[in-house]
C-alpha cells in the first residue's frame, strides 16, 4: 500500500460519507465506490483511488485493474473545468435542478458530457457538506454558493472570459 497524497477538500468529505455507507455492507462493492468517486470528482485521480484503497482495504493494483477494465471510468479529467452541481437534499430543495437545467442548456451538453472545446464537463454530486450555501456547485476545487440559474450562467461566462484573455 502506498501513502496517499490527499489534499483535503469537501469532495473527500462527500466520498468519505458514501464509503461509510458502503462499508456497512459485508462485502462493500468496489465498482459502486468508484462510481460514487467519479460522480464526485468527475474522474478518478490516483489520490482518490489510493484513498478508496485505504478505506475499503482493497489493493491498489486491484482497483487500477477494475478502473482500466471498464471504459466508463476516467483516470484523466475530461475537461479543464469540471462543473459539479450538488443535487443533495438541501441544494435540491433550494432549486439546484434549475441551475443544472440552465447550465446544461447554456453549455449545450448533458450531465457527464464535455463541451467540444474541452473546457467544461458537467457533472452532479450528492452534498458537498456545505448545505448552508445551498444551492451549491463546484468548479474544480472552487465552491460557489447561493446560486440562481442566472448567477451560475454568469460564473461560467466569467470562466470563458478569463480563458479567452489568457489565450488571446
Amino acid at each position: 500500500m502506498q501513502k496517499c497524497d490527499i489534499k483535503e477538500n469537501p469532495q473527500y468529505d462527500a466520498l468519505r460519507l458514501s464509503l461509510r455507507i458502503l462499508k456497512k455492507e459485508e462485502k462493500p462493492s468496489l465498482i459502486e465506490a468508484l462510481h460514487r468517486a467519479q460522480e464526485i470528482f468527475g474522474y478518478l485521480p490516483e489520490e482518490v483511488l489510493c484513498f478508496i484503497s485505504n478505506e475499503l482495504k482493497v489493493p491498489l493494483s486491484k482497483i487500477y485493474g477494475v478502473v482500466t477494465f471498464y471504459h466508463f471510468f476516467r483516470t484523466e479529467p475530461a475537461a479543464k473545468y469540471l462543473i459539479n452541481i450538488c443535487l443533495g437534499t438541501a441544494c435540491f430543495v433550494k432549486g439546484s435542478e434549475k441551475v443544472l437545467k440552465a447550465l446544461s442548456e447554456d453549455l449545450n451538453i448533458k450531465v457527464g458530457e464535455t463541451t467540444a472545446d474541452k473546457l467544461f464537463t458537467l457533472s452532479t454530486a450528492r452534498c458537498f457538506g456545505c448545505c448552508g450555501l445551498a444551492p451549491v456547485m463546484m468548479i474544480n476545487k472552487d465552491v460557489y454558493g447561493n446560486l440562481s440559474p442566472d448567477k451560475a450562467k454568469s460564473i461560467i461566462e466569467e470562466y470563458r472570459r478569463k480563458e479567452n484573455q489568457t489565450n488571446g
Partner: protein
Amino acid sequence: MEKIKIKINGQEVEVEQGKTILQVAKELNLHIPTLCNFEPLLPQGSCRICLVEDRGKFVTSCTTQVAPNMDVKLDTPDVIASRNLILQLLFTERNHYCMYCEASGDCELQKLGYEFGLDHFEFETYERKFTVDNSHNYIVIDPNRCVLCRRCVRACSQLAGHNVLGEMNRGIDTTIIADMNVPLGESSCTSCGLCVQVCPTGAITDKRSYYFGKDIQTEEIYSNCDQCPVGCGVKIYKKKGSNFIVKIYGDFDKENEGILCKLGRYAALFEEKSRLTSAKIKDDFGFKKIDFDGIIKTINEKMEDSVVYVDGSLFNEELSLIKKVFKDRVFSLYENEPPIESNVSIDDIKSAKDYIVIGVDLNREYGVIGSFIKRKIFSKNGRLILFDSNYNSLKNVANYVFGIDELESGLEKLKDLDSPIIIYKNLSEKETEILSKNKNFRFFYLPFETNSIGLLKENIKHKIEKSKNIIFIGKNLQGLKDIAKESFTIVFTPYETDEINKFDLLIPINDGFEREGSFYNVDGKVINKAKVLDSKFETFDLKAILEELIKVKSL
C-alpha cells in the same frame, strides 16, 4: 469426504467429492497438461490448456469439480486439437522466441511446446512491444514474455498477502502491474520474491540468477533461513560442482508455505556486510595474524578471569559447548526474556481473526508472519490493530492505528475483539501490566534474535559483569562497546566493522549457509539448518575451537 463414481477415459472410478478433475487425474497417475494452475494457489482457469471433455462439452479440469455421472475423456482427438490451438495462440500472443529468454530451459510454456511437438508458429506473431520493467533491485518484469496466467498476482495476494501485483486493461492489451501501474522498484513491493518463484515463463525473473545456470545444472538442498526466529524452510539451488547459490526458493511443504521475506530470499545472495577474513591479534604494532594453536593458547591463558557474552545468533550445539567450557560465566549480551510468554503458535496466527501488533514492523522483521496477517486483512477475514508511534509499513493496511502510548485507551475503544492475538517484541512494564489483565487475549512473542529461546533453554540470561577478560561470541556487537573498554576482549564474529578494531583478538566464524546446526523457532520447535556452502575465507568452525578447548582443559 464423500465418494462418488465417475468415468475417466471409459473406466469407472471412485473419487472424492470436492476435488477437481485435475486433482483426481493426478491421483490416478493420469497426465493433464497445465500452465496457469499452481497449487496451493486457488485455480482460476485462464490458460485453458488443461481442458478435457465431459459428455461432449469442454471443461477446464483445474477448475471443474467432479460430479456424479461425469464421463470425462482426457485426450480425444478434439481435446488434443483444441489444446494445440491454445498453445499456438499462447506462443503467438507475445514474444516467445526462447533463444533470447532467461527462462529457457526452465520455462513451463517451452516444456509444453516440446510436449506437444510444436515445430512452427501457426499464426503471425502479435508485434506489440511492452516496456521491460528493470526498476527493482532484484526482479525484472518483462510483459512481453507473459502468458497472463496470474500466478504472480495470486501468489502476491493469496499467499504472501502483499497485494502489490494486479492486472490492467483488457483482452490482448492486459498487462501485469504493480500498484497503480508504477515501476516495481517504486511500488509497495516488499521484495519477497514469491512472484519470481511461481512465474512459469521468463516474464518475472531474478536478476541475481541471470546467466548463472539452469535448474538442471544445480543441486537442490533443503535448509532454513536463520535471519529471524521464524526459521522459514528454503530450497536452495546450488550450482553443481561450485560453491555458490543460484537462487533461493521458499519451501511449500514447510510452515512458511513457500513464502519468504526479502531477507530469506535475497540476503544470502546479495552479501552486503564485509566479512572478517582471517584471525588476528593486537600487539604493540597493531594487528597480526594468528593461527588455530595460537587462538587456543591465548584463550586458555585468559579463561580464568573471563566472562563470556553471547547473542541469539548461536545455534544450540554451539551454546551447549560454550556452557561446557565456560560453565556459569556465560551471559546473554542482550535482554532475551519474553515480557509475556507465548501461548499460541504460527498455526494459530494463520487462523485467528483479530491481531493486535505492538511496536514492531512486520514487513521489515519477521516478514512471513506479516504475510500471514496481511493476507487475512485483505481477504477481509481478519482485522489488524496497530499500536506504534514510529513509522510502520503496516499502517495503511491496519484497520485501526494508535500510538504506543494509547494502549490502554485504544483497547478500551475496541470492545468486540474476538480472542485477539497480541504480537509483540519488547514491552514496557506498564504495557505488560495492561495486557496481562485481559483474560481474553492470546499472546505471540517475537524473540529478539534467531535463537533467543535457545539461550533461555541453556539458562543463559542477560547480565553485565565486569571482568579482566571478555569473550564475545556472536554477530551483534552493539552492546559490547561500553563494557569492553578496560578488558582484554576476544571476539568471535563473522563481520568486519570499524569498531571491531578496538578489540584484542578477532576470530572470524562461519556465517549464513556456511553454518549448520539447530535453533528454536518462534513456536519453540527445533529447526535443523543444513549447511550449503563452504566458507570462502579463513574462517573457523566455532565448534572445533570449543571442542579443542575442552580437550586442552581436561589434559
